[in-house]
């Protein structure tokens, strides 16, 4: 290396580092009061922009496209009804591509470039955790429509799916009522099942239920002979199943192959909705239990209209499911909050949120301003031979959301 070149190189590096340092000196330190300002919402035109952030490609697309469809349906209905504060809603759809950094990147784009009033979407906890700092740092709003593992409460997120005390705890209550004294826990290896099972263990300790086994399969795994063997050997009263997606197909066929049935050892699942029943095959699932807040068969005028409208828009063979319903509801709730606030600004919307109600397909839901979750009715269903899920039990009234399970003594050590 010629000396000249070396000098040049050192100089270049020095300049670069100096520039970096100079710029750094201007930035805010952690802990300082900094630019955590509310996001700029573009209210200039005749329309108001909202973001739809779902995976339209990749492994999660199967599920998330149905949510996007439900969101679009709600937006179209509201627009046909005159819009929000006199403005038509203009949806801007972005593809999260089943990739968490992409979710973060796209949410930033929606907030900063498009200056949307709110974003609707995300499915997996991982994608929500990835976008959460973006929404908090930019002071924008996300409406998250999927049941999840709780233990979260961001001021910049409204959670319209169930938290644990609206889905898992009622399911456990139901099992106790049915006389279950021992449980086997089977789940996919990701955050929701692992956290749900921690909660189940705490609940079990309090209620004298013995947890005889706990197993996780990698997401997408289809090899369940060993787990089925272990379940069969353990001889629990029931199985609590938090497996995701296609793993259920293999699990239930192995479960049946070991000779277990819904009579001998029922399985209660929290991720199997109408669509999954179809693909797993009703014959393998007959008599098994599920826990949700909404089924396509849920009674009520609002649901009849929702199912009819959805099937008219997207095809008569399309089932409706809990996350789709929660997504549909989330748009209506946001619109109601905006109307109440008389403003699209995030802070105004948040301030107006408490007590907003909506006649949703699942029944009346109410926003809890403190937790930014909604009051929901828990429903246990039994899968029939025809593949339909019929309700066998429901909570008497919508359950108040309690993401940190603060009202449950047994959950004290959890968070």
């Amino acid at each position, binding site marked *: 290396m010629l000396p000249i070149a070396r000098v040049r190189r050192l100089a270049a590096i020095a300049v670069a580092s100096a520039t970096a340092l100079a710029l750094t000196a201007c930035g805010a330190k952690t802990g300082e009061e900094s630019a955590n300002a509310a996001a700029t919402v573009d209210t200039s035109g005749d329309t108001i922009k909202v973001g739809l952030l779902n995976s339209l490609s990749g492994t999660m697309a199967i599920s998330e496209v149905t949510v996007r469809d439900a969101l679009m349906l709600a937006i179209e209905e509201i627009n046909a009804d005159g819009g929000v504060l006199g403005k038509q809603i203009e949806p801007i759809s972005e593809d999260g591509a089943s990739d968490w950094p992409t979710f973060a990147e796209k949410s930033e784009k929606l907030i900063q470039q498009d200056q949307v009033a709110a974003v609707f979407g995300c499915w997996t906890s991982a994608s929500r955790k990835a976008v959460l700092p973006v929404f908090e740092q930019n002071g924008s709003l996300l409406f998250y429509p999927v049941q999840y593992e709780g233990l979260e409460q961001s001021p910049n997120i409204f959670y319209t799916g169930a938290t644990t005390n609206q889905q898992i705890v009622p399911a456990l209550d139901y099992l106790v009522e049915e006389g279950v004294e021992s449980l086997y826990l089977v789940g996919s290896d990701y955050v929701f099942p692992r956290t749900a099972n921690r909660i189940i263990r705490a609940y079990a300790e309090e209620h004298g239920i013995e947890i005889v086994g706990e197993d996780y399969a*990698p997401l997408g795994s*289809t090899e369940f*002979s*060993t787990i089925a063997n272990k379940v069969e050997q353990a001889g629990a009263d029931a199985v609590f199943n938090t497996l995701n997606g296609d793993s259920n*197909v293999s699990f239930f066929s192995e479960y049946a192959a070991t000779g277990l049935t819904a009579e001998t050892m029922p399985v209660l699942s929290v991720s199997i909705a109408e669509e999954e029943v179809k693909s797993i095959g009703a014959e393998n699932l007959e008599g098994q239990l599920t826990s949700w807040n909404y089924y396509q068969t849920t009674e009520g005028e609002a649901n009849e209209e929702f199912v009819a409208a959805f099937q008219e828009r997207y095809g008569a063979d399309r089932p409706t499911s809990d996350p789709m319903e929660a997504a549909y509801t989330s748009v209506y709730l946001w619109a109601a909050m905006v109307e109440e606030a008389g403003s699209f600004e995030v802070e105004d919307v948040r301030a107006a949120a408490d007590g907003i109600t909506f006649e949703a397909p699942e029944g009346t839901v109410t926003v809890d301003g403190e937790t930014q979750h909604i009051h929901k009715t828990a429903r246990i269903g039994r899968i029939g031979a025809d593949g339909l899920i019929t309700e066998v039990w429901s909570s008497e009234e919508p359950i108040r959301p309690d993401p940190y399970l603060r009202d449950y003594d047994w959950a004290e050590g959890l968070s």
Partner: protein
Amino acid sequence: MTVILSQSFTGISIGAVLLLIALGLSLTFGQMGVINMAHGEFIMAGAYTVYVVQKSIDSAGTSLLISLPLAFLVAGAMGVLLEWLLIRRLYARPLDTLLVTWGVSLMLQQLARDIFGAPNVNAQAPSWLSGRITLVDGEHSLTLAHSRLFILGLAIAAVVALTLTLRRTSLGRRIRAVVQHRDLAEASGIATGRVDRITFFIGSGLAGLAGVALTLVGPIGPTMGTNIIIDAFLVIVVGGIGQLRGAVIAAFALGVLQAVMEYSTTVSVARVTVLVAIVAFLQWRPQGIYTLRTRSLA
């Protein structure tokens, strides 16, 4: 006691699946040295064949039986096409073959998505495969599912057929001649290009058979190939290049190890243990269980 028995059977049935998905590779990778990452997509093609056949034929049993030869042909034809279009130009560059065929696998996955949709689909198992044999009855029964026995039988049949083809037929002799000494084979009048193509046809066709078998244990989807291709290659790596018996032993050994580890720990710990065990094994025997010695350099 029944636990040990039932877990051994689980291990053997995992091994049978591994053997089926690796068997085609033992020809294309083991004998020809071609690292075909699209092998997994040939398996997928076999699986979708079952799905398509079932759409046109009502009986799940008949369609499964029809699918076996059909999937072999479909996947085999895809293999021949791939060999003819790309691989034959790359015999001297094995690592580039790996990358090129990986690109092909991306394309085939997208093609499957465009044709069949992104969601996974399922094929109905015929009724005669959904039952099980109960060997030990009592509090803890030992049951063998028909579908698993079917896969085991298919794997054994495929190994036997392949061995006989390689050992007893003139085609097999030509294949071995080309593998062992390409120039000499060519000089003695064997059309090596054609033999390559036929070898690839059989290897890929076996992937199609594996695809048919996999429909009995899991869903059919565009990405099913990627999930298993590494396992398949590991079987060959452990078994040793160019040796059918190496692949057989490796498949069942890995299957049983996986089953035992899964039972005593968790699925993910089992996976990691198996992978680490393979690395450790290669420290001991870098060329796999069986080695073909050559005197040539490099």
